[in-house]
Structures are given as C-alpha cells and as structure tokens.
C-alpha cells in the first residue's frame, strides 16, 4: 500500500490519495482512495492480490475532484453505486461498503476481460495435479460443497472463477471473490483441464457434452453487465472459443468427495 498526494485544484490544498495497486487475473488495477478506513479495509481484503505495479488502470473510489472520462465510457449502476470505465481510467462512485466495492471490481473486471480473451464465471475452481477443474452452477448447485470436499490449499475460489486464454492456453486464476467456503486466497493460475456443470444425483457420473451444450451451460453462469452489442459479440466469441478448446461435462455427484474418482 502506498500513499501519494496530489493537488486538489478546487480548494487549493494538497489532499492525500491512497493508492492500492492490485493484480487480479494478470490485470493490473490501481485503486485510489481518499478515505483511510476504506483504504485499509480494502488493503486487508485484497492483501493476496497486492502488486508493486502502480501503472495499472487507475480506479478512483469515491474520489472528489475527478475529471470527465474520455471517449464513450462504459457505465453500470448497482443499487446507486456506479462503475464508469473510460479509455484510461475508471471510477467507482457512491460506494456504500466493502461488499459493494467487491461487486464493482467484479463488474469492472468483467468488462476489462473482454479485450483480454477472458470472463468471470459463477464457478468453483480447484487445482489437482497442476491443472484447474472448473465447477459451474448457480447458487445451491454445489460449488461451495465441491470446494469443501477438495484438499486444503487446492481451491482457487468457490464462487467466482476468472478464466482467460493466455498465449493460446486457457487458464483459471485465483480471485478474491468467495462464497460460503472462504479459504486462503490463492493468487495463482493453472491450465484448465475441464469445465463441469454440477448436478446433484444419487450416483457420481461424468458425461461429456457438445460445445453447443457447453455454451448453453456457460451462458447463464457468466457474470456480464454490458448491454453494448460489440461487447456481447466479443463475449460470444470468447465463450465459443473456450467450449471448442476445453471439454465440458455434466457432473452428477452425491455431495461426497468420491466425485473426484470419476474426474480422475
């Protein structure tokens, strides 16, 4: 965490700007705060994702004296809190608490990932033998159960997975976004072995599905907030790419650790 100052031209005094450089999914962000309590809280929450690179995208969090964003900024309103993304800066405004900040960062990442062949997915990601297994499904599908039934230190996230194609290889990244099963954050990545749509059943069974059915599985579980046509086209291209590159399965499982046997 670093503290810098900048002149506040409106009132002619120097006000502190608290900088929190982060890197999530290899995307550098530089969160800037005026409020010390908010800054310290975010510093703790994202401690595993702190970066030394202050050249990441500036993200002004309820900073006064902001300038208009260039271009045609992407804007999203979340219950009164807003995200704006211009060409070289983002702004969060009216952020009521740290959970809202978490949501706004996810919204911002979902947009930034489009130009980086990636997306956020409601999914748990678990490492096994150096590869990531991605378990997707809506609330109650069993993502946190899968995480809790997996070996300690193997869970990248139990709720929101960040998937990106980096140098022609699809990888899952650890995120600070957790659900019920919050383990220690893991700021690392691994190549994706498979994507599994969770279905609770009386017997463990794995069934590979077609890319088209894979796309059908992914679409409702993608975190996506843009209503722009070109963004939706990009998302469709990215999702089509991943379901053609990575096998997608229906995983019928009993909420027991034995499901790993059918995956292995």
């Amino acid at each position, binding site marked *: 965490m670093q503290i810098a100052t900048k002149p506040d031209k409106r009132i002619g005094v120097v006000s502190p700007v608290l900088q929190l450089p982060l890197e999530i999914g290899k995307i550098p962000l530089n969160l800037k705060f005026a409020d010390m309590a908010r800054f310290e809280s975010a510093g703790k929450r994202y401690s595993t994702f702190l970066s030394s690179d202050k050249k990441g995208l500036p993200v002004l969090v309820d900073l006064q004296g902001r300038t208009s964003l260039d271009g045609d900024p992407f804007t999203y309103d979340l219950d009164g809190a807003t995200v704006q993304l211009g060409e070289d800066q983002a702004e969060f405004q009216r952020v009521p608490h740290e959970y809202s900040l978490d949501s706004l960062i996810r919204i911002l990442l979902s947009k930034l990932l489009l130009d980086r062949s990636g997306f956020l997915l409601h999914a748990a990601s678990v490492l096994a033998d150096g590869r990531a297994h991605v378990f997707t499904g809506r609330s109650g599908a069993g993502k946190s159960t899968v995480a809790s039934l997996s070996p300690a230190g193997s869970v990248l996230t139990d709720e929101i997975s960040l998937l990106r194609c980096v140098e022609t290889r699809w990888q899952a990244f650890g995120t600070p976004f957790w659900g019920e099963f919050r383990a220690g954050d893991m700021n690392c990545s691994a190549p994706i072995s498979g994507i599994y749509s969770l279905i609770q059943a009386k017997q463990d069974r794995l069934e590979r599905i*077609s*890319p*088209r059915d894979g796309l059908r599985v992914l679409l*409702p579980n993608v975190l996506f907030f843009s209503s722009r046509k070109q963004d939706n086209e990009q998302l469709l291209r990215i999702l089509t790419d991943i379901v053609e590159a990575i096998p997608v399965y229906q995983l019928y499982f009993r909420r027991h650790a034995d499901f790993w046997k059918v995956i292995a």
Partner: protein
Amino acid sequence: MNPETVLKTNPMLAWREIDGSIVIISPEHSMVHELNPTASFVWKRVDGRRTADEIAEQLAAEFDVTRESALADVHELVESLVANQLVSALELAEVKAHV
C-alpha cells in the same frame, strides 16, 4: 404474410454459429435465444433484401420438403422471430423507400 414482406434482423443483436446452430444474445433484454437447424438456415438468409417466400424457396431446394410445407414452416418461424424482436418484417415498398 404478404409475399413481398422483406425480413431484416434486429441490428442490436449479437449472434454466433456453433455446431450448425445460431445462438443469439439480445443485450437490451439480457435474453439468449438458440435456433434449431431449420431456424438457423432461415436466420442466415435474413439480409434485409430477401422475402420470407424467397427464403422458403431456398429451404425447399436445400431440404427434401415441398414448397408448401417450407412456406408454412418459414411463415410460422418468422412470426415467432418477429414476436421475439429478433427480426423485423418490412413491406417491399418500405424497403425501396429507404434505398
């Protein structure tokens, strides 16, 4: 449907073909539509110039169906696409007025 009705896709939609089927996202309504192979065949020929009847002729030529059956299928499909705001139906005179 008027034989001179020209079909045009909604320009706001994002779509992509996968495994021979068209998947469409309506950003405005956050809706996803998936078309079956016949509907996908029709969708790919909706270009703002062809009429539903012309597309039905192509459908009959491509698949082993009668012209009457293809016409009925395409008209029913177009009504569904229009109802879902995926396609708009324009009268030929209306199209010519905009050219």
